[in-house]
């Protein structure tokens, strides 16, 4: 693992975490989660719960490696996935290691540029903040649950006892005070990096190139393309395997992109219904 952890692009990253320009105007902020250096400590999960007062989601033993959280949800806004693979770690010396590759990845709301949840919310509770993040206004949400089915990542989730939906706010309150989100600040390896999205993108591209050069051919960015199915993620990732291995959709597309098609089909069907009703009266005496 030394080849990876001794990497200057991680240690010497120098990103300004202030969410405002010097003139006070807000910037588009996000996360770059570099899973190649995640150690699975779950500090992010804990820090998030502490700061955001997220209730516990029960103690359970899943038996799925070290993951007892299970999935992202109303009471887990960060979720660390653990995947044990029976193959050597792809470092410069393929003989090194014990033939077990252990993948860890801290998942979070993607803060999609084109967010399905935000599109479909009928109350306007979900909104886009000045930092280009996506947040639920808890005083507006009436728990209709539409966003839950709309999110292509299974992020939004209804808290049954409460009736409303909850998810990562990218620490909206902290950003307003130019503070780093709790998870990023707690992450001891800087696997979770917080900063302006454009700077993080550049850093991520550099990092994936470095890894490729060092023989980690599996490394790939997920959610970094600004024209992907959801217009790019505000919180994107560096993964070491296919997204579905981490429980992430490999090619998510925001459903509202096809809303025109759908309304078109509905208009045709509505027209057919009206015609059908008219046809039922053909030949009737007035």
């Amino acid at each position: 693992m030394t080849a990876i952890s001794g990497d200057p692009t991680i240690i010497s990253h120098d990103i300004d975490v202030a969410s405002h320009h010097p003139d006070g105007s807000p910037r588009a902020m996000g996360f770059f989660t570099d899973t190649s250096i995640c150690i699975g400590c779950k500090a992010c999960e804990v820090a998030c719960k502490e700061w955001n007062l997220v209730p516990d989601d029960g103690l359970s033993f899943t038996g799925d490696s070290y993951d007892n959280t299970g999935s992202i949800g109303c009471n887990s806004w960060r979720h660390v996935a653990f995947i044990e693979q029976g193959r050597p770690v792809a470092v410069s010396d393929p003989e090194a290691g014990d033939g077990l590759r252990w993948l860890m990845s801290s998942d979070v709301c993607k803060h999609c540029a084109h967010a399905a949840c935000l599109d479909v919310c009928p109350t306007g509770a979900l909104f886009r903040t000045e930092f280009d993040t996506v947040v639920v206004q808890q005083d507006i949400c009436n728990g209709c649950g539409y966003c839950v089915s709309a999110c292509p990542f299974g992020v939004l989730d209804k808290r049954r006892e409460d009736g409303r939906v909850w998810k990562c706010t990218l620490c909206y309150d902290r950003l307003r005070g130019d503070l780093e989100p709790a998870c990023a600040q707690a992450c001891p390896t800087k696997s979770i990096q917080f900063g302006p999205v454009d700077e993080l993108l550049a850093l991520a591209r550099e990092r994936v190139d470095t890894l490729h050069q060092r023989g980690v051919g599996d490394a790939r960015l997920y959610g970094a393309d600004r024209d992907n199915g959801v217009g790019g993620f505000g919180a994107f990732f560096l993964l070491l395997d296919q997204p579905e291995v981490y429980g992430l959709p490999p090619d998510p597309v925001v459903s509202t992109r096809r809303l025109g098609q759908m309304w078109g089909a509905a208009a045709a069907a509505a027209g057919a219904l009206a015609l059908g009703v008219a046809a039922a009266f053909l030949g009737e005496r007035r």
Partner: protein
Amino acid sequence: MTEARSYYGRPLLKGPVWEPDIAAYLFTGGLAGASATLAAAARRRGNDVLARRALMVALAGLIVSPPLLIRDLGRPARFHHMLRVLKVTSPMSVGTWVLSASGLATGVATGCEVLGVMPRLRTATETAAGALGPALATYTAVLIADTAVPAWHEARFELPFVFAASSAASAGAAAALVTPAASARPARRLCAMGALVELAATGVMERRLGEAGQPYSTGGNAVSRRLARGLTAAGALAMTLTGRRRPAAILGGLSVLAGAACLRWTVFAAGAHSVRDPAYAVGPQRARIERGESRGG
């Protein structure tokens, strides 16, 4: 479903959090919408007997629908938060307004009809409700298709036709059920036409979806799907052949209505089913990447 890689086989989407109330609403809303249109058409053709009864059916549908929807909210007391915005990107928002307008128009029209007052207002509101009817009967298809739920989203082209036809069949059946046979001929015809198109449209949908359509016919849906088809076909047949006799019209009508309810349940349940197995979400996406149709990661 074909083998797909996944994270411990866990769903990567959240299942719809909607209770069966919503499946019931898919039925009652469709029935109300198509009935309002039937009422308006009957009035235009001078069939007041049918118009009056279809209008009553529409009102009944519109009275039971809002409570079904409101009860399903996590915060029912905040139902009016739906009315603080109109968002065209949200089929639920559009639908809320369509439903509210339909309810208002149908309520006023029925009031005038029953009290025998203000015939012009009645005609105007009845016509408005009739015009909104097809929208009310089909928007719910867009509502569920505009989600990440694989079985619903993949079926986005056919679902509106399935819902429109099923609504027509239910409206015809309900009207024929409560209307004297001599005035009910258009209702019987609408019922038969709707049933025929519904069976055809669901067939087309399942064939086009192939593997992705399995949630519509596996598990508990195997039974409800067969019930939907059988009850609809048998009821429509009875309605067409012997509908002039009251007992046949009543039995046929009830059978078609039950069939429509089963169909809505099948569609509703297929959504949840397709979320439980991550392969339904991953499969088509992975295939898109392999075909080179992905827009980027």
